[in-house]
């Protein structure tokens, strides 16, 4: 029985592969393509698009995993590299740039990528190092019904969010109405980055690797995060984006700052109820402290081509990835809804309005600095002490700076 099911499944797979028959369109005669990248629906679509190029003499493999950052540097350091392409974002391209593992794409673009839009090209010092295919940002997600019952408008600032949370709790509508990916580590650090930018803070002294976050804006950002956490599930330090989404789907949260790329799944009734799905709506990111720059960051996801690989494989990789972001994929409604695509011909769906609003409001992109990741890690490790009330803001921020300095010295950014 099982054998039969397996057979049927593999036949179905073969059939679908044959029906795409796209490999002729890829125009690759020979080569090896191996893509490493993060794992969410939009990137899976890209992975499938690249795999459609597999065929006679052309080998295409993908390794899409949430742990991609732990393996991409190692997997591209050898010569020839195991991965011929890495799908990265504005934060993670830096690690590859620091180690000099990706190649400029200008030649390939001149030959095979004339149709790419200019805003898809990520150039560093005038050289195109990555081709972006989607944009992302964190923005407000709210429950229409709960806010209506509480008699409040969707918040435009974090101060409004706190006030709304208080009303919702006082009226007994929800015990912990605020959600947020506040898990210790990367997520918590990202929330700090958002808030700190919202208060108008600068992470480093201009043009140097010297950190400067132990200031008024830093303390204000931490205080706002602490105040918000008072309206969150007490387990908030263990809640990453997945757990926060699950809380949302379970109907336990009414307002939160969440990734645009996660709105699609929130609108799905699986693990949720019709009531929650129907009342889930999104809006622009919030500002904080009277600032005009939203307390969030803009992100792109794009693909790169490995430096330590033969020109033949690099060319095959470029062509396969070009096939993956071919504008024709947007013909599928499901795919069009998966992300805010930067691909030519993309028409914004309703799920994209939050990210578009973020871009229109002048949101800053997450900085592509060689040492930003070190600060991010230091924040993730030291902020939980403050969130648990073990330290005051000045002490925690001093700890973050000290942890960053130790790491930056080791990596040669500071003497």
């Amino acid at each position, binding site marked *: 029985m099982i054998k039969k099911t397996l057979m049927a499944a593999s036949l179905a797979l073969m059939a679908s592969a044959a029906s795409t028959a796209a490999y002729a369109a890829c125009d690759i005669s020979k080569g090896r393509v191996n893509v490493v990248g993060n794992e969410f629906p939009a990137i899976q679509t890209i992975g499938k698009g690249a795999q459609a190029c597999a065929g006679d003499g052309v080998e295409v493999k993908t390794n899409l995993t949430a*742990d991609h*950052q*732990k393996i991409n540097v190692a997997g591209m350091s050898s010569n020839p590299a195991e991965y011929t392409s890495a799908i990265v974002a*504005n*934060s*993670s391209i830096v690690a590859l*740039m*620091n180690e*000099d593992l990706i190649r400029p794409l200008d030649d390939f673009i001149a030959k095979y990528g004339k149709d790419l839009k200019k*805003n898809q*090209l*990520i*150039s*560093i*010092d*005038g050289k195109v190092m990555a081709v972006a295919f989607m*944009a992302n940002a964190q923005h407000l997600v709210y429950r229409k019904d709960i806010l209506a019952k509480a008699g409040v408008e969707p918040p435009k600032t974090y101060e409004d969010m706190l006030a709304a949370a208080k009303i919702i709790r006082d009226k007994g509508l929800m*015990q912990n109405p605020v959600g947020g990916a506040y898990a*210790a*580590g990367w997520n918590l650090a990202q929330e700090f980055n958002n808030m700190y930018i919202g208060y108008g803070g600068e992470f480093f002294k201009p*043009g140097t*690797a010297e950190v400067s976050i132990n200031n008024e804006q830093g303390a204000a950002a931490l205080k706002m995060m602490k105040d918000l956490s008072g309206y969150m*599930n*007490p*387990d*908030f*330090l*263990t809640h990453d984006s997945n757990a926060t989404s699950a809380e949302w789907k*379970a109907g*336990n949260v009414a307002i939160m700052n969440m990734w645009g790329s996660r709105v699609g799944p929130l609108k799905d009734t699986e693990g949720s109820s019709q009531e929650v799905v129907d009342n889930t709506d999104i809006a622009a990111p919030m500002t904080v402290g009277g600032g005009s720059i939203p307390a969030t960051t*803009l992100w*792109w996801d794009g693909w790169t081509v490995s430096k330590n690989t033969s020109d033949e494989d690099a060319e095959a990789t470029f062509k396969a990835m070009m096939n993956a972001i071919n504008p024709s994929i947007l013909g599928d409604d499901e795919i069009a809804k998966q992300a805010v695509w*930067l691909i030519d011909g993309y028409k914004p769906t309703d799920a994209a309005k939050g990210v578009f609003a973020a871009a229109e409001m002048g*949101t800053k*992109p997450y*900085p*592509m*600095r*060689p*040492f930003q*990741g*070190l600060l*991010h*890690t230091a924040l993730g*490790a030291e902020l*939980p002490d403050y*969130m*648990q009330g073990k*330290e005051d803001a000045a002490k925690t921020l001093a700890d973050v700076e*000290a*942890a960053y*300095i*130790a*790491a930056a*010295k*080791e*990596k*040669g*950014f500071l*003497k």
Partner: protein
Amino acid sequence: MLLFIAFPIVSVVTQSLHTAHDQVIVEVENCGPFGCEKEVTVDQEATRKIREDQPLGKWAGLSVYLDRGHLAFQEVAESWKTRDSLSGFFSAITNLPFYRAMSFTLTFVVVVTPMTIILGFMIAVAVNALNQKLKGFVIFFSLLPMIVTPLIGSLILFWMIDSRGILGNGLQWIFDDPNLSLKASTGLTWIMLMVYGIWHAAPFAFVVFYAGLQTLPQDTLESAMIDGATRWQRIRYVIIPHIMPLVTFVALIQLMDNFRVFEPIVGFSAEAHATSLSWIIFNDLGGETRLLSSAAATSVLTVIGVGILLSPVLVRTWRDFKVKV
């Protein structure tokens, strides 16, 4: 031995004594979907030659070991000088990553190792007294915690103790406190991790002790019974001395395992409350910019820590061995 133990250790030690070269930073213009911006980047041309000349990196001596992320002598001395009380000094120390990890790791080792041995022994004695027909069945179930992959086991427990999970919600109901959360309190998180550690390791102790019980000299036991020894006296004077070498063995393995506690911290997402040396290594290697030298230094410190922890047991084994010869 040479290939799989000595070489890796030598390579880790070498790595820990080197750091990355000084980076040559230049300011460039970056463009993308959101416009152009002046930003700094690493000048690869300038860095390449230094890298090729010294591929290992810059010689750093013990500086990585002494920095804030590891032994932090400077910071420790500083807080000793400026201390107002001994407890103030200790809380300043445990704010440093290495000492924070050690304070949890050592508590974990000291609590979990003996509890595992005691619980394992109790299960072994209990199972040994069971009816022959029941034994196989009970042994299988007692072994389950060890068979379940640690990460999966801890994840399942993690979900159960969530404030909306069956255990977490149950506790809230018992203590009549809707805000009670095991994951939000450092003390409760530590207890939870230790209970998990004992639960997971007890079957190992049980299996070893159960095997030891099969070799019990029946005549000694019978003569003890004829002399009127109670069940407790038999355990105290016959069974425990007989399996003592096994206790040493289990203690040795458990000390080593518990010192490297890692999976429960990841599985329970407990890093806000409890860290260990292994977790620090994982965190150093998992960031967007990998800290290889830092991870290597922590590895060496772990090896040294295991060595120190095991030395009493090793000395004891060595003495036992010599007496027997």
